[in-house]
C-alpha cells in the first residue's frame, strides 16, 4: 500500500486469523452482545411495490424449486422420511409468512427482504411464548425457510458494488457459538472479531454459513467505526479499512475470481473424491442440527462424520428426554441413509455451557469435567442418549463416537453402559440395533499414545484434531496471544497422528479425521500420506477438498511423508508442502 495515498484516504490494514474463506466488501456494523438487525430497510415507491412483490414471489418459487430438487434426489424407499423438507416446502407458502410478507411490502412500501424479516420475526415471536421445549424449537423451521427465501432475495445483483451497502459486515469483540447461530448470519456479508481463532466454534459456524470472517483482530472494535467501508479477506485473514479506490477495484476483481473459482468447485461436489491414482475417500460433513443434513447433501457429502449433539442440550432449562433425542437422531439418520451418521455423545465444555447443568466453576474447563468424564459421572443422562442412538440406529446407518477418551477403562465402562441400555431396550420391546459401530475420538494425547491398546477395543478412531493439537501443543486456540502457534502441521502432531493411524491399521481398523484440519487443503498431502481413511468437515468445505483430492496421488503423498518426517518445524513442513504441492493446493486468485 502506498503510504501517502493511505494518509489521504485513511486506508489501513488489520491482521488477524482467517476464520472462514471468501472476500466481502461492505459497511461495518458494530454489534453489542445483544444481537443485531442486519437487513437494511428501504422504501420502494408506490408504483414499485408490485415489482417488489413479484421479486419476493419469484424468490419463494426459486427457493421451493431448490428444495423440491433436493427432495427429488432422495431415493424412493426413503421418500416418506423427507417429511421435514416437505413441511418446509409447505411453510414457504404459509399464510403467516407468505401472505404477510406481501401485505407488508404493499402496506409499508418496503423492500422484500425487510418485509420477510418482519413477517418471520412475528411468526417466530409466537414461538417464544411456548414452554414445551420441542414445540418451541420449531421456530427454527420457520427461520430455516425464511433464510432459504432470503438467500434467493439477496443473491440477486450481488456483483453490483452500489448494491453492497444494503448489507453489512459485523464487527464484534467476540461471538460465542450460541450468539453466532442466533444472529441470522446468512443475511450478512461476513464478520470480524477481536477475539477467537480459526478453530473456535464461531469460525466453524461461519464456514458452514459460507461467509468470510477474520478473527483475533484484537483492535477491530476500537479502530473501526460504524459505516466505515471495510474489505474482509477471509483467505488471508486481513481487514482493510477505508480502502482507496485502487484497493477497492483490486479487491472487487479478487472477489470476482474467488466467486468464479468457488462456483467451479461446487459444481463438481457430487462427484466422488477419487485420487489421481484411484483411491476413493468418503468426504463427510460435520453438523450440529439435523437440519444441516441438507447442507451436507447439497455439497456432495458422503455421510455425517461428526454429529455434535450438544446443541440438543444447550439453550434450555432441562435435559432432553429419550423420545426427543431419538426423534432428532432418527431424523438425521433417515435423511442421510444409506450413508453413515456418526453421532458423538454429549461433549460439554467451557465453550458450550448447558443451562440445565451449569458447569461447576472450573479454573481450566478444557482439562476439567467434560465429555465422557461428565457422562460417566452422570450415567443416567448418558444412558438416555445411548438408548436414543441405539433406537435411531434401527432406521439407517448410525455410528457412536465417544469424545475425550483418555484411558482404556473409560471405554470398558462405556461399553458396559451400552450393553445395559441394549438389554433394557430388548426387555422393553423397542426396535434398536446393538451391532452399531462404536468408535472413539482421539483428541487427548494419552489416547493417541495408547492407540495400540484402544484399537482392540473399538471399531474405529476419529481424530479430533482441534483438541488433539490444543492438548499436544498446550495452546488455547481461543487466546489471540498464542492462537498463531496453533498449527496442525506441527511435527509433533504429525508424528502423533502417524502413530495412531499405524496402530489402527495393524488391527484392521479405520482412522478418520473430523477436526478442522481436514478442511484446509494445505494439510491434505500429509493426511493422505499418513493413510487417513475418511475426512469430515464443515459442509461448505466438502466440494473444495474433493476437488483437491482428485488432483493428488496417494502413492505420491506416501513418498512425500518421508521428507516431511525429516523436518523439525511446522514452518519447514509448510514450506515443503508449498513447494511440492503449491500449484495444486494454493489459492491462486491472488496471482
Amino acid at each position: 500500500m502506498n503510504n501517502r495515498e493511505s494518509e489521504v484516504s485513511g486506508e489501513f490494514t488489520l491482521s488477524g486469523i482467517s476464520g472462514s474463506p471468501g472476500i466481502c466488501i461492505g459497511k461495518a456494523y458494530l454489534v453489542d452482545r445483544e444481537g443485531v438487525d442486519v437487513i437494511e430497510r428501504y422504501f420502494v415507491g408506490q408504483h414499485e411495490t408490485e415489482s417488489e412483490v413479484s421479486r419476493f414471489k419469484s424468490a419463494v418459487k426459486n427457493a421451493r424449486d431448490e428444495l423440491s430438487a433436493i427432495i427429488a434426489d432422495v431415493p424412493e424407499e426413503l421418500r416418506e422420511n423427507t417429511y421435514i423438507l416437505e413441511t418446509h416446502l409447505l411453510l414457504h407458502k404459509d399464510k403467516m409468512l407468505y401472505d404477510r410478507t406481501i401485505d407488508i411490502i404493499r402496506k409499508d412500501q418496503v423492500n422484500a427482504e425487510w418485509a420477510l424479516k418482519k413477517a418471520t420475526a412475528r411468526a417466530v415471536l409466537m414461538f417464544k411464548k411456548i414452554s414445551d421445549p420441542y414445540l418451541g424449537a420449531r421456530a427454527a423451521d420457520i427461520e430455516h425457510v425464511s433464510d432459504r427465501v432470503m438467500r434467493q432475495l439477496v443473491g440477486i445483483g450481488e456483483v453490483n458494488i452500489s448494491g453492497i451497502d444494503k448489507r453489512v459486515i459485523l464487527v464484534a469483540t467476540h461471538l460465542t457459538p450460541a450468539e453466532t447461530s442466533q444472529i441470522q448470519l446468512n443475511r450478512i456479508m461476513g464478520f470480524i472479531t477481536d477475539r477467537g481463532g480459526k478453530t473456535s466454534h464461531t469460525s466453524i459456524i461461519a464456514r458452514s454459513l459460507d461467509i468470510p470472517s477474520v478473527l483475533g483482530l484484537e483492535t477491530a472494535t476500537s479502530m473501526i467505526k460504524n459505516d466505515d467501508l471495510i474489505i474482509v479477506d477471509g483467505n488471508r485473514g486481513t481487514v482493510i479499512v477505508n480502502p482507496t479506490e485502487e484497493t477497492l477495484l483490486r479487491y472487487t476483481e479478487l472477489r470476482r475470481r474467488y466467486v468464479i473459482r468457488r462456483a467451479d468447485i461446487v459444481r463438481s461436489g457430487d462427484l466422488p473424491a477419487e485420487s489421481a491414482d484411484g483411491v476413493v475417500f468418503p468426504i463427510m460433513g460435520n453438523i450440529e442440527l439435523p437440519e444441516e443434513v441438507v447442507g451436507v447433501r447439497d455439497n456432495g457429502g458422503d455421510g455425517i462424520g461428526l454429529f455434535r449433539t450438544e446443541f440438543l442440550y444447550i439453550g434450555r432449562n432441562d435435559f432432553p428426554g429419550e423420545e426427543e433425542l431419538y426423534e432428532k437422531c432418527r431424523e438425521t439418520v433417515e435423511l442421510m441413509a444409506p450413508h453413515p451418521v456418526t453421532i458423538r455423545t454429549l461433549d460439554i465444555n467451557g465453550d458450550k455451557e448447558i443451562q440445565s447443568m451449569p458447569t461447576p466453576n472450573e479454573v481450566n474447563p478444557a482439562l476439567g469435567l467434560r465429555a465422557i468424564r461428565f457422562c460417566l459421572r452422570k450415567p443416567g443422562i448418558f444412558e438416555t442418549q445411548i438408548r436414543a442412538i441405539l433406537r435411531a440406529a434401527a432406521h439407517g446407518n448410525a455410528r457412536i463416537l465417544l469424545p475425550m477418551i483418555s484411558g482404556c477403562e473409560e471405554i470398558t465402562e462405556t461399553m458396559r453402559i451400552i450393553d445395559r441400555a441394549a438389554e433394557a431396550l430388548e426387555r422393553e420391546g423397542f426396535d434398536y440395533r446393538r451391532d452399531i459401530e462404536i468408535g472413539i475420538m482421539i483428541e487427548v494425547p494419552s489416547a493417541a499414545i495408547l492407540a495400540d491398546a484402544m484399537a482392540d477395543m473399538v471399531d474405529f478412531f476419529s481424530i479430533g484434531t482441534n483438541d488433539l493439537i490444543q492438548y499436544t501443543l498446550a495452546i488455547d486456540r481461543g487466546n489471540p496471544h498464542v492462537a498463531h502457534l496453533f498449527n496442525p502441521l506441527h511435527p509433533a502432531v504429525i508424528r502423533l497422528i502417524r502413530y495412531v493411524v499405524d496402530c489402527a491399521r495393524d488391527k484392521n481398523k479405520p482412522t478418520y479425521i473430523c477436526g478442522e484440519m481436514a478442511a484446509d487443503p494445505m494439510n491434505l498431502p500429509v493426511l493422505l500420506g499418513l493413510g487417513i481413511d475418511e475426512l469430515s468437515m464443515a459442509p461448505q468445505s466438502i466440494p473444495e477438498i474433493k476437488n483437491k483430492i482428485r488432483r493428488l496421488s496417494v502413492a505420491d503423498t506416501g513418498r512425500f511423508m518421508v521428507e516431511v518426517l525429516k523436518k523439525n518445524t511446522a514452518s519447514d513442513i509448510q514450506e515443503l508442502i508449498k513447494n511440492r504441492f503449491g500449484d495444486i493446493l494454493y489459492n491462486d486468485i491472488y496471482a
Partner: protein
Amino acid sequence: MSEELKTDVIVSNPLGLHARPAAMIAKLAMKADGDIWLTMDDETVDASSIIDILSLACTNGARITLEAESKSDIEILRKIRSLFEKGFDE
C-alpha cells in the same frame, strides 16, 4: 352452526402438534372451500397455516375443537379428525 361442523379431538401422539402433524393438517385444510379453525382453550387458529397451528403449542393430551365454516368441508373435517385419532401415525 350445525353440530356436524364442529368436533372435539385429543392430541394423542407423544410429541404433540409439531411440524409434521401440523403440515398434515394444513395440507388438508388448504383444500377446503371455507376456513377451518382449530381452537384450544380460548385461542383459535387457522388450520391451513402450519405456523398458526404450531403457535397453539398443543402437547400430548391437549383437547382441541375443530370447526369448519362450510358444509362442503365436512369430509375434510372428518379426515383431519381421523389424523388425530390415529395419532398422526407416530
